[in-house]
């Protein structure tokens, strides 16, 4: 369906996108995940035809659509600020795309009332959009984007403007609507929770490059590099140096890994120590990784305590099932097979 090939784009003379290539298949929901300023929105705008790439091509079903103007692409785009037309009512906003496509009036009326029904806002027909709450605006914006039945739907941080509780609630609705629409969707976000909840496939964008691509589970389990692990907040990242095929030198000493490293020997790397895999106890489990630590802080997180411990000069975050007093010396360990050594980039 959609294929984006080697997209380059500069912003203010600096490279913003440096050769982006990916595909979106029929009915697939792809999440474009990256920090703010990574060029995610610009990529959407290039696909929508609102901006021209410096070089590279956008294909739809094999057809090069680079020269096609926005309104002839038949794509839908939902903006982060929704961009609901303030001079038009809820129904008029939803009808806009249909009207521009010159659909007959009777058909527009039916489609609009159906759209309003699907977002449970039948009573809002004539309401000015300026009087809607944030969540209502979000739903109207989605209905407006979907109304003309676009071939591809793109959403630019659709929940970014909402507060946290509303977000989780709307995320469920959104998941359902997007799934029901059976359209190919590109969903841009910087929030990994959203991405994990929605995506069939994740695309991680950093510094203008696609860093990793894969199912959410794969990305979570096997982050491609240190940036991915840090961006997704997977755990403690400890700088190290690869000594040989399965050993890494760190400030905590020499650590042995189970898997064979694919990183060049004597290059720098990051060791990922996940808090949930930490073995924390006063018992001494004799292993190569055994560490002595002092508890610095312990914060109740609901299901567990997030404990901050000091090992030598290194601060580590670990999970614990019970509260531990501050200042208490503890023993700390990670199973060999849970340690991951990641390349820097």
């Amino acid at each position, binding site marked *: 369906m959609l294929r984006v090939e080697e997209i380059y784009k500069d912003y203010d003379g600096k490279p913003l996108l440096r050769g982006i290539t990916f595909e979106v298949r029929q009915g697939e929901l792809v999440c474009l995940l990256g920090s703010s300023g990574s060029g995610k929105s610009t990529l959407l705008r290039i696909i929508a035809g609102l901006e021209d790439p410096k070089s590279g091509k956008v294909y739809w079903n094999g057809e090069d659509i680079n020269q096609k103007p926005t*309104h002839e692409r038949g*794509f839908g785009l939902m903006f982060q600020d929704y961009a609901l*037309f*303030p001079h038009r009512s809820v129904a008029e906003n939803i009808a806009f*795309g249909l009207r*521009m496509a010159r659909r007959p009036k009777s058909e527009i009326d039916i489609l609009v009332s159906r759209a309003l029904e699907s977002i449970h806002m039948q009573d809002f027909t004539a309401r000015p959009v300026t009087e809607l709450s944030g969540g209502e605006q979000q739903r109207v914006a989605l209905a407006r984007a979907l109304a003309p039945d676009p071939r591809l739907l793109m959403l630019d941080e659709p929940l970014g403007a909402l507060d946290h509780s509303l977000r989780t609630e709307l995320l469920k609705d959104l998941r359902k609507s997007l799934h029901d629409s059976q359209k190919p969707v590109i969903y841009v976000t910087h929030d990994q929770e959203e991405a994990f909840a929605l995506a069939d496939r994740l695309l991680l964008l950093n510094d203008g490059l696609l860093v990793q691509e894969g199912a959410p589970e794969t990305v979570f389990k096997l982050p491609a590099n240190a940036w991915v692990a840090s961006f997704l907040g997977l755990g403690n990242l400890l700088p190290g140096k690869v000594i040989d095929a399965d050993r890494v030198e760190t400030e905590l000493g020499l650590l042995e890994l189970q898997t064979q490293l694919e990183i060049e020997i004597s290059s720098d790397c990051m060791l990922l120590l996940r808090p949930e895999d930490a073995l924390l106890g006063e018992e001494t489990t004799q292993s190569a990784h055994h560490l002595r630590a002092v508890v610095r802080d312990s914060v109740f997180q609901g299901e567990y305590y997030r404990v901050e411990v000091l090992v030598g000069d290194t601060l580590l975050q670990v999970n614990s099932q019970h509260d531990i007093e501050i200042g208490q010396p503890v023993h700390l360990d990670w199973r060999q097979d849970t340690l991951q050594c990641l390349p820097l980039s």
Partner: protein
Amino acid sequence: MKHARSRTWLLWLIPLAFLLYFFYQPLLAIFRQVFSERFNQGWQFFTWSQITRPLLFTLWQAFLSTLLTLLIGLPAAWLFSHFDFPGRKSLRTLSLLPFILPTVVVATAFNTLVGPRGWLNLILMDLINLSSPPLNLLNSLPAILLAHVFYNTSIIIRMVGNSLTRLNPHYEEAARVLNASPWQAFREVSLPLLLPSILGASLLVFLFDFTSFGVVLMLGGPQYATLEVEIYTQAMSRFNLPMAGLLSVMQLAFTLLITLLQNRVSSPRYGKAALSSERKTLRRPVSRGQKAFVILMSLLLLILFVSPVLSLVSRSFVTFEAARGERGEFETGFTTRYYRELFQNRTGSIFYTNPLAAIRNSLVYSVITMLVATTMGFLTAYALSRAGRFRRWLEPLFMLPLGASAVILGLGFLITFNRPPWTSGPFPVLIPIAHSLVALPFVVRTILPAIQGIPNSLREVARVMGAKPWRVFYEVDLPILLRAVIVSLAFSFTISLGEFGASSFLANARTPTIPVTIFRYISQPGALNYGQALAMSTLLMITSAAGSLLIEKIRLPGEELF
């Protein structure tokens, strides 16, 4: 708390008394003049055509001027809000030039461009070897329109351009994604969202054109008289004060009507929703059409804004006199004579106006105006910001003078104060007081937002930490407002220096001001008078520009003057 309230009353009292005495009293006097005449003679003291002729002409020229201004201003606003091109910033600064030029300077400048002694005629005469100026655009409608376009294009550029840059670009893009072609997106989305600001700016331009006095008087001549010019003529040359009064009532009614309409249409209808906080990114012109547009438009603006000024300055250094004996031959050359003449103290006929005295008077008036206007404006702004429940009643009382025309003010002063002790005093204080009333709106509009911009929590923190009310003012308000006050001082000084409407009524041969002297020089025949008018205009322009530069330097961000 009781203490604080009595203080607030005091704040009200001083500016209110000032306005009642110096604004409402003269205004009432004008009304009284009209109605007492009506009781003496019935409505027979005028014919309808005496009113309808100037009124219709005023409306007609204002309409034409506004239309022409939009014709240039809208594309110019588009140019500045969409394109990045070399010289953009300078051109934008240049577009502010008309704001700072006094009307007499603009009128003289256009005189040097299109008048019988102007460059256009000189060049034509030289080219086709004529002995007399071929074109006479002076005392014509085109001259008036030209000056009005020069004056008001910047208003369109600023107001419409501002909405253009602040209009959230996502609206148009959302429309484009929703199957709208570029033209449809503009017509269906951008245009309706911009319309309030276009209408508001147009009505403001219309209002300025409607109340334009100096330019019309000096470029239009007697046959093209607007209401204001007619008021002046009736009062100053026919001595028909009731007629002038009746025209003033007319003028006031229309001004009020236009102002109300302007306020109504330009109030933001969609709240802050339609505006984006981020500035639109400017693009370099890419296509051939865009490049042509940018080049032609910036060239047009450059000519519009620069040519009158250059023409004035250059013409003030050039002599152009018929050589003795030989018809059709002229001597032209560089000279500083016009400037030197200004500083030579000659005494002659009673019609002779002493340029040195005018300069001295103007400077003294300006200093007084600066102090009076800023003090009154400061108190008014403070009263308005603290009014509480009285605000609804008192605000209109304070805001009405803000829309009053200088000419009507002059007429009112003439009727009310043209007697001892005002006329017998050692020094005429009426002119600076009139100037203060003219400058007051600008001062209030500079200081009021600054006061309102101070978060009350700052004052409350100071109170909690033990500061007495006056101490709070001294420690919190004053330092923050200092810049606004300095801007106000410079503003009122510059306004007073260039004020012509009220001064033309109040300045007599003994107490001329610079603009009035320029007007007298340019109305009299002779190359020397013409040259001196130009020299004086040039000096006035430089002084005004210096004042405005100072204002611009210390201007607080986010202020709008209209």
